[in-house]
C-alpha cells in the first residue's frame, strides 16, 4: 500500500481549481519581475481528493486507535470543538479589524485567560505563544527581563533537571542563558543536594516539569521552590503534564512563578500531525507586566452606560518583552480549548486528571512485573518502563515499539526521558476504556513473551503496516528532501 507522489500523478494542463473570470481591464505586467516556470503539480480535483484520502489511510491517529504516546497526551479531540472553531464568525475574521468589530473573538480570549488563571492560580496570562516550546522561550525571556529590570545582570545560569524535555534546555539557550543540568535522585525527584550545590547568585531560575517526565510528582516541590527562590531565581513550570493535575492542584500553589500550558495536550485541541498547538503562559503578579501582548482586557461600563455592555480591547503590558509572534496567537486553537473547558467545567477537568492517573496506574500495575519499572512509585498520568525485558537481551525498545504496531496500537514514546535506559513512556489518557487498556496490556505481555521465544518476530516488526521498518540511516546519509523530476 503506497501512493504515488502528487508530482507523479501530475499531467500538463490539469487544474483542480475553478477561478473567477477577470472582470476588470488587464493592467500591464512588469515583465522584468515575471517568472518563467512554476513547477507545481497539475492534478484534477477527483485525483487530488483520492490522493489525500488514500494518504490519510496510511496514518495511525487517535480516531483510529489507541495512542499511548508519553508526554503527548493523545486524548480524544471532541468534534464539537471542530464545529465551533469553524463558525464563520470566528474563521472569517481579520486580525486587523478594529476591536469593536471583533468583540466575539476578544470575549473568547478574555474568558480563556480567566479560566486558565483560575485553573493555574496565576495572576495573568498571555495567549500569544503558539506552542509549548514557544511558551518556554517566552517565559525564559521574561525571567531575563525581570532580572535585568531589577538591575540584576549577573544571572546567567538556568537549572534544568536531567529528566527534562529537550525543549527546556533549547529554549533556555535561545535566551542566551547557560544550561546547568541537575541530577534526579533515586526516587525520580530532583536531587535536592545537587540543586542546592548549584544555587547561587548566578542562577536566573530553574525549569521544572511536575509531574516530571518520569510521570512522577516531585514530592519535594515546595522545598525546591524554596531553594530556587532562596537564591533569587524564578521557578518556571513546563505545563506539558498538566493533564495529571488539572482541577486537582493549582501550579501556582506549588511555587511556580511562570508556567506554560499546552492547550493541545491538556485541553484537547487536536495535534494535527504536529501542530498547530498553543502555549499560553501564566505568571504571578510580580511578572505580569513583562508578558507578551496583546492581552485582552475588559472595560466595565459605569452605572449610566450599563446597557452598552462590556467592551473588550487588546492591551500591551507596560514592560512587555514584546510580541513573540504576529497578531494575537493561535486563535483557532484558543477557541477550541475555551470550548473544551467550558464544556467540562472544573468538576469535569478534575475527573480528567483523576482518570488519566487512574488509567496510567492501572497499566503500570499490569505491566510492572514484566517490564522493568525503574521508579517504583505511584505514577501520575504516565509512567516510564524500560524495554530491557529480562531474558530477552537481544531485543531493544525500538523492536517492542515496532511490534506493537502489528496489534493496532501506536507505540509509546521511546528513548525518552534519557535517564531511563531503553525507555518506554506510556500515557494512556483518560479517554481510553478499561477494555482498551487491557487489550494493550495483553499485547505488551505477549510481546514480552515473544521477545524471549521468537525475538526475530520483534526484530522484523512491524509486519502488518502499510510499509515495513523504514531505513532512517539511509534517509539521513543521503538526504532526499524534495521531489525532483
Amino acid at each position, binding site marked *: 500500500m503506497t501512493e504515488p507522489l502528487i508530482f507523479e500523478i501530475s499531467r500538463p494542463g490539469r487544474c483542480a481549481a475553478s477561478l473567477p473570470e477577470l472582470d476588470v481591464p488587464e493592467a500591464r505586467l512588469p515583465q522584468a519581475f515575471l517568472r518563467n516556470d512554476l513547477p507545481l503539480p497539475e492534478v484534477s480535483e477527483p485525483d487530488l481528493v483520492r490522493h489525500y484520502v488514500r*494518504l490519510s489511510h496510511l496514518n495511525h491517529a487517535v480516531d483510529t486507535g489507541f495512542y499511548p504516546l508519553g508526554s503527548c497526551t493523545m486524548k480524544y479531540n471532541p468534534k464539537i470543538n471542530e464545529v465551533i472553531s469553524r463558525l464563520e464568525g470566528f474563521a472569517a475574521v481579520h486580525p486587523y479589524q478594529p476591536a469593536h468589530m471583533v468583540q466575539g473573538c476578544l470575549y473568547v480570549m478574555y474568558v480563556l485567560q480567566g479560566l486558565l488563571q483560575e485553573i493555574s492560580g496565576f495572576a495573568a496570562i498571555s495567549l500569544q505563544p503558539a506552542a509549548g516550546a514557544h511558551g518556554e522561550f517566552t517565559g525564559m525571556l521574561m525571567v531575563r527581563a525581570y532580572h535585568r529590570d531589577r538591575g540584576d545582570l549577573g544571572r546567567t545560569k538556568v537549572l534544568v533537571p536531567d529528566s527534562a524535555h529537550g525543549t527546556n534546555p533549547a529554549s533556555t539557550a535561545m535566551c542566551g542563558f547557560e544550561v546547568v543540568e541537575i541530577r534526579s535522585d533515586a526516587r525520580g525527584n530532583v536531587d535536592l543536594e545537587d540543586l542546592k550545590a548549584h544555587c547561587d547568585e548566578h542562577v536566573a531560575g530553574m525549569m521544572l516539569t511536575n509531574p516530571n517526565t518520569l510521570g512522577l510528582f516531585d514530592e519535594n516541590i515546595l522545598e525546591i521552590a524554596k531553594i530556587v527562590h532562596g537564591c533569587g531565581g524564578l521557578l518556571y513550570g513546563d505545563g506539558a503534564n498538566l493533564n495529571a493535575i488539572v482541577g486537582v492542584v493549582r501550579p501556582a500553589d506549588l511555587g511556580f512563578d511562570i508556567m506554560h500550558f499546552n492547550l493541545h495536550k491538556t485541553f484537547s485541541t487536536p495535534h494535527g500531525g504536529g501542530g498547530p498547538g498553543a502555549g499560553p503562559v501564566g505568571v504571578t503578579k510580580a511578572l505580569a507586566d513583562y508578558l507578551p501582548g496583546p492581552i485582552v482586557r475588559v472595560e466595565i461600563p459605569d452605572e449610566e452606560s450599563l446597557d452598552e455592555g462590556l467592551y473588550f480591547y487588546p492591551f500591551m503590558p507596560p514592560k512587555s518583552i514584546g510580541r513573540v509572534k504576529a497578531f494575537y496567537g493561535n486563535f483557532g486553537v484558543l477557541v477550541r480549548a475555551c470550548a473544551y473547558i467550558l464544556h467540562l467545567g472544573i468538576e469535569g477537568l478534575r475527573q480528567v486528571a483523576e482518570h488519566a*492517573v487512574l488509567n496510567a496506574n492501572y497499566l503500570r500495575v499490569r505491566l510492572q512485573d514484566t517490564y522493568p519499572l525503574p521508579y517504583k512509585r505511584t505514577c501520575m498520568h504516565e509512567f516510564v518502563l524500560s524495554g530491557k525485558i529480562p531474558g530477552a537481551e537481544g531485543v531493544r525498545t525500538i523492536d517492542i515499539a515496532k511490534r506493537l504496531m502489528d496489534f493496532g496500537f501506536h507505540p509509546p514514546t521511546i528513548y525518552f526521558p534519557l535517564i531511563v535506559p531503553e525507555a518506554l513512556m506510556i500515557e494512556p489518557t483518560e479517554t481510553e476504556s478499561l477494555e482498551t487498556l487491557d487489550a494493550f496490556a495483553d499485547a505488551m505481555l505477549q510481546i514480552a513473551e515473544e521477545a524471549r521465544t521468537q525475538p526475530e518476530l520483534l526484530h522484523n516488526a512491524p509486519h502488518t503496516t502499510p510499509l515495513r521498518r523504514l531505513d532512517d540511516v539511509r*534517509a539521513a546519509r543521503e538526504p532526499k528532501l524534495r521531489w525532483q523530476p
Partner: protein
Amino acid sequence: MPYIPHSDADRAAMLDAIGVKHIKNLFADVPAKVLYPKFKFPPPLDEQTLLEHFRFASDNNANVNDYMCFLGAGAYRHFIPSVVDHIVSRSEFYTAYTPYQPEISQGTLQAIFEYQSMICALTGMEVANASHYDGATAVAEAVVMAYNVLRKKRNKVVMSPFVHPEYRATTRTYVQGLDLEIVGDDTRQDAQSLLSLVDEETACFVTQFPNFLGELEDFRGIAEHVHDKGALWVVVADPIALGLFKAPGDYGADIVVGEGQPLGNPLSFGGPYLGFFATREQYVHKMAGRLVGETVDAEGKRGFVLTLSAREQHIRRERATSNICSNEALNALAAAVYLAALGKCGLRQLAEICYHKAHYLAREISKLRHYEVVTTKPFFREFVVRCPKPVAEMNEALLERDIIGGYDLGRDYPEMANHMLVCVTERNSRLEIDTLVRALKEVS
C-alpha cells in the same frame, strides 16, 4: 462526561487492581495543603448549550464575508477551495501526532514531503522545512540561523523597514538574549539603498517581497553585494505573489521565509497560520524545524521519515538549532492541498487576477480628488493611498457602507499618517471595487 468511558464498576475494578481505595489516594505525593483547592468556575455546559454560547459569541464578530473587505497587511482573504477543508477535516490527519513512527504515519510524512517540495518549487530553493509558527517567527528564526551559520561572529542584522512591522518586532524579541543588533529602520530607504549598511559585521540582510507597502523592490545586484560581504540574504516572500513573480532563489537569496496563511488557511483572527522556511542545501544542518526525507523500507519500498533530527531539541537539547517542537503541520497540509489544487496554472492565474484588480482600483482611486496613490514602484495586490482624513476616521465612514477599509500605516510609520494600505484579491468583485471608489468619493 461523554469523553470518559469509565463506569463505576470499571473504576472499582481498576482501583482494586492498583490496590488503593479511592482515586484520591493516587495523589498522595502532592502536598496535602494544596490538594483540591476551591475553584471559582462556571457550571459545565452541555454540547447544545456550548454551541449556542459560541455561536452567540461568533455572531458578535463582524465577519469579512458579510462585508466588502480591502484589508490585508499580512493576512489575506483568498478563496479556499472546498477540497482543502475536506482533507484537513479528516481525522486521520488532524488527530495524529508528529510522525515519529513512520510505518504508521506515511500519510502525514508523504504529505509533508510534498509540501516541502512545493515550497522549494515556489521559492526556488533546495530545502524547506515544515514548519514555523508563522511568518514572523520564521523571519526571526532565519535571522538566528544566519547568525549561527556565521558562527555567532557577526552581530549586525540589516532589516528593511518595510518588512512587516510585526515580523520586525518579533525578530527583536527573539534576539533579546543574543548578541545581535538590528539596523535599517529608516523608512526613506529601499532595498537598494539599504544595501550600503551591509558590511563585514553583518550576519544577514532581510528584505520583503512584495514589501509591506505592497511594492516589488528591485532585487538586482543584492545577492552579489551581500555575498561579497560574506553575509546571508533573507527574503520574506508572499507565496501568492510567487505564483507570478520570479522566485527569490532566482535572485540568489539564501533563505526564503514567509507567511503561508494565504495558501488555504482561514483568517481565523490571526492564527493558526504557518511560517514557511526554505534555504540552500548547504545550510540544511543549520536549519530549524521538521524535515521529512525519502528512504526505503525493509522490502525496498519507497517511504518517508523525519530526518536530520540531530539538529533538533529532542536530540541536541541546548545545542539545537531551535527549540521548536510542535509546529503548524495541519496548516502546512492545508497549504499543500491548496497548492496542489491550484497548481502550476491556477496559482499564476490567481496571482494575475489579484494584480489586475489591485491595479484597476489604483487607477480608479488615482482619478479621485483628495486622494493620492503614493505607490510608484510596481506593486502586487496592495498599494498605498494618501487619504484626506485619518485612516481610522475613513474606515469608520466606510464601515457604514459595509466596507472594511485598508490598514492604517500611521500605526507603524508616524510619517505615514493618513496613509492607507489597500488590498485587493480575487474575492473583490468589480462591483465591490467600484463601490469602494464611490464611497471614497463620498467620504472625502
